C-alpha cells in the first residue's frame, strides 16, 4: 500500500512557484478602441475609461445578479469544451454594449486590476447589467464572502511532525496521512484516492499533501 522507497524523480518547483512576475508599476489601460466605445453617451461618465489611480477602491459588488454557485450550471450554452480556453466563444451571446464592458473588464483582469474591473462592471448601465455574461462576470469577480462553519479539523500535529521529518523522501508525490501514519503515497492524486478507498478509514479523513 505504501511506497517504501519513494522514486527519485520528483516535480521540482522553484521557491514561490506562484509568485507573480509583476512588471514594476505596471499601469493598466484599456485600449483606445474600447475606451472610445465606453465613452459613448449611453455610458455614465463615472465609468473610468482609463484606469490606474484610485483603482483600489472596491465597488461593493457583494450582491451578484447570479448566485455564484449556480453560475456554472445555469449557463450551459456558454460551456466550453473540456480543456479549451477560447476567450471569445461566449462573447457571441452578449449584446454589443455588454461586449465592450466585458472586453474592458478582461483587459483590467489581465493587468491584475481586479478592483478596477469590479468598479467598471458595477458602474455599467442597467441594460448592460442585465446581460447574462455581465451578470456572470460580476458574480465571479464579486468579493468573497466568509461565514463561520462548524466543521472542525482539530489536531494535525502528528501529520505535520511526519511531514517535517519525512517529506524530503517523498518529493513530487502525494501523501495521505493519519496521525503519524503514512496511509498511502502515489504519483497522482487519482491513484492516492483510489488507494485510500481500500484503506480502513478512521473517524475522520486523512490529510492529503503534495510534497513539493
Amino acid at each position: 500500500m505504501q511506497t517504501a522507497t519513494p522514486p527519485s524523480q520528483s516535480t521540482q518547483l522553484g521557491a514561490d512557484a506562484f509568485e507573480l512576475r509583476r512588471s514594476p508599476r505596471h499601469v493598466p489601460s484599456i485600449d483606445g478602441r474600447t475606451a472610445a466605445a465606453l465613452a459613448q453617451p449611453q455610458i455614465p461618465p463615472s465609468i473610468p475609461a482609463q484606469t490606474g489611480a484610485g483603482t483600489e477602491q472596491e465597488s461593493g459588488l457583494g450582491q451578484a445578479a447570479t448566485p455564484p454557485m449556480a453560475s456554472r450550471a445555469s449557463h450551459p450554452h456558454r460551456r466550453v469544451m473540456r480543456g479549451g480556453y477560447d476567450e471569445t466563444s461566449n462573447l457571441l451571446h452578449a449584446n454589443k454594449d455588454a461586449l465592450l464592458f466585458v472586453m474592458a473588464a478582461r483587459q483590467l483582469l489581465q493587468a491584475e486590476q481586479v478592483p478596477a474591473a469590479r468598479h467598471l462592471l458595477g458602474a455599467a448601465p442597467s441594460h448592460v447589467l442585465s446581460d447574462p455574461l455581465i451578470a456572470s462576470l460580476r458574480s465571479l469577480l464579486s468579493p468573497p464572502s466568509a461565514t463561520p462553519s462548524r466543521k472542525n479539523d482539530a489536531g494535525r500535529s502528528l501529520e505535520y511532525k511526519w511531514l517535517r521529518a519525512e517529506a524530503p523522501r517523498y518529493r513530487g508525490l502525494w501523501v495521505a496521512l493519519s496521525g503519524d501514519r503514512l496511509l498511502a503515497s502515489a504519483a497522482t492524486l487519482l491513484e492516492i484516492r483510489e488507494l485510500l478507498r481500500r484503506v480502513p478509514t478512521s473517524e475522520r479523513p486523512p490529510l492529503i499533501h503534495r510534497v513539493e
Partner: protein
Amino acid sequence: MSLLFFDDRTPFAAGRAEFVDLPASQQGGTAKIYVRIEPESFGSPIDAELDTGATWSVLNAEVAEALDLLGGSGEPLKISTRLGEYPGRLERIRVDILADEGASLTVDATVWVSQDWPGGTFVGYRGLLERIRFALDPSDNSFYFGGL
C-alpha cells in the same frame, strides 16, 4: 467564540489552526507556510501554500480535476508565474479554511484553475484572503483567521 480581539474587545479572529512550514526545495530555501483547506466537495483536508503575493488562489490541476472544475465555463485568464505563463479560468467555489480551535470559515471564493498548471495549491489574496482577517504566530505555528 473568538480567539483574538482588538483593543476594544471586538473580535479579530474566531478560528485557529496549526500551520506547517516546510522548505521550498530539497536544497533548502525559504520555508513555505501551508494552511489547511478543504475545497468544496473534495472530502479531505489538503495543505495550501499561503501566498499573499499571489493575485488569485490557485488549485493544483489534479485537485481541480477531482472537483470537475477544469471543464467549467468560468472567465478565461492567463497568468504569469515563475513556472511560466499559463491559460486557465476563474471559477467560483466554496473553500473551507479549517480550524483546530474555534470556528472554521467557509469562503465563497474565486480561484484560478488550469489543466496545464504544474504547481501546487495556493491561497492568494483576491477572491479569498481579501475578506479575511488573519495573523500568524510563529512561536507555536498558529494561523488565526476570521471573517470581516
